[in-house]
């Protein structure tokens, strides 16, 4: 099966800032793909380019087999976007919002009403259908927004884009939204989501790309990333501030307050021994150490720490 999304050398510059820097991505059909990165990494720009809202300066992107610039219309027919900013009208009811969006997608009045009812049911909003959206909880509003993105015939919407779908949601609403994403994936829909939360990517995605400064820093399954980039982490406590500063450039995790530094390792005795000798040949700088299994946080911090400079102690 051809990939749902494929980009090659995607580049976008705003003024002097290169937001996307020759980005290469490949998302297989029917999978959940998470684009993980800190603020300003280029996540939203990637989504905007893939959803035809912004044209790239260079490079190609194909979504559902169509070029995002030359075959914009065909791409738009195959996708659904739920952006960071809500696209529902707060003073309209849930049902009115969905009927309106369904009409805009080209359905007749009757078909739009039926589609709205189906979506309300599916996103558990039937009870709230006749309430204005401003009375909804954050999670309900996000579900309504997501539903509004899916008004097209489910047979034709093949790829769903979610830009930071759970940012600002309380844990319960976030869990509800995760269920919705899993359900979509269960129907065979390809889901492309961006997130700043490692836990979210870890739980939902089949594959994760870590984005930093407009480039893919790493790509793989959550397990692969954990193993490849930081199977384990060695936490070192420096003897004093000078020692901390000497060790600091080698570390990926810095905690100046406790003079603690984290260094990636595969966790074998041989590697830990060699690492300690290499970092501290005179056996003077390191006071204690502890070994941890890596979390996705470690991968993320390891990959996105652009400066290896010690912060002020």
């Amino acid at each position, binding site marked *: 099966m051809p990939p749902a999304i494929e980009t090659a050398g995607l580049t976008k510059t705003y003024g002097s800032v290169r937001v996307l820097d020759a980005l290469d991505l490949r998302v297989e059909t029917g999978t959940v793909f998470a684009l993980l990165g800190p603020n300003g990494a280029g996540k939203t720009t990637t989504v*905007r380019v893939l*959803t035809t809202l912004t*044209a790239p300066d260079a490079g190609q992107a194909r979504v559902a087999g169509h070029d995002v610039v030359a075959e914009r219309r065909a791409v738009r027919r195959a996708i659904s976007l739920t952006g960071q*900013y*809500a696209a529902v*009208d707060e*003073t309209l009811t849930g049902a009115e919002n969905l009927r309106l969006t369904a009409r*805009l997608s*080209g359905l007749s009045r009757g078909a739009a009403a039926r589609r709205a009812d189906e979506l309300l049911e599916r996103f558990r909003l039937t009870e709230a259908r006749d309430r204005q959206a401003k009375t909804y909880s954050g999670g309900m509003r996000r579900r309504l927004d997501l539903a509004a993105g899916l008004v097209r015939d489910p047979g034709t919407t093949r790829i769903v884009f979610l830009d930071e779908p759970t940012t600002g949601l309380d844990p319960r609403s976030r869990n509800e939204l995760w269920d919705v994403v899993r359900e979509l994936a269960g129907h065979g829909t390809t889901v492309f989501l961006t997130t700043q939360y490692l836990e979210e990517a870890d739980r939902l995605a089949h594959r994760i790309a870590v984005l930093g400064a407009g480039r893919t820093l790493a790509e793989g399954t959550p397990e692969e990333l954990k193993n490849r980039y930081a199977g384990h982490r060695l936490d070192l406590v420096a003897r004093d501030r000078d020692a901390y500063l000497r060790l600091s450039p080698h570390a990926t995790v810095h905690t100046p307050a406790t003079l603690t530094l984290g260094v990636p390792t595969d966790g074998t005795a041989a590697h830990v021994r060699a690492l300690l000798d290499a970092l501290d040949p005179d056996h003077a700088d390191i006071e204690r150490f502890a070994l941890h299994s890596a979390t996705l946080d470690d991968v993320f911090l390891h990959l996105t720490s652009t400066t290896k400079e010690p912060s002020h102690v």
Partner: protein
Amino acid sequence: MSEATARPLAAATALVGRGVLLGRRNPDAVISALVMPVMLMLVFVYFFGGAIDTGDTRYVTYVVPGVIVLCAGFGAAGTAVSVSEDMRGGTVDRLRTLDVGAVPFLTGHVVATVARNLLATTLVFGVAFLIGFRPSATPAGWLAAIGLLLAYITAVSWLSAAAGLIARTPEAANTVTFLMMFLPYPSSAFVPIDTMPGWLHGFAENQPVTPLIESIRGLLLDQPVGSAPWTALAWCGGLLALAVTVSGALFRLRTR
């Protein structure tokens, strides 16, 4: 009808419905759009009217066309705010991924504004009658006057829609309201132009609002209007063509 015209038409219809519904759900805005012109008319007629000499015509009869035009401009300017709110939020992105273009999007806003405005205009006429406004227009005169008003409201609404596309925030878009509120003052809307300082005559006599008000006043009082209605119509048509062209270009520019 081909799909290429049926889709935008259906989208525009749905968006007009949305605009009307949003207006109804936001009674504050509607009330201010209705109360403001009525208050203004009462202020002019009762506070200033005694001091303004408009010859044989009673001041209330003289001033109503001006108030109507002021209220039309004020109401139409609201389009800028609603368009800019949609541009800032996620609405514009959703519309674009649904392949809804600039014209149905802005038409939705403009038509809803025009509908709201006609309501306000009817109310102002109603109150004007209560306080002594006695036009002597022929049915044809009424139709022509209403037609001109409609053209003006539509042109100003489209201009405001274009401004709403440029404005970075709804607050900035709101300045259009001030401009539209101000424009009728240096015209013959409230006081005869002869009473203004000489340097202002050039502007006051040649700005779009003056021929509009002169035409509406003349038509309602069944007095000769000369070429004023055509001048007014030319202004409205020109501004409308400019606004539609500019907003199409602005929409493409702002959504790149």
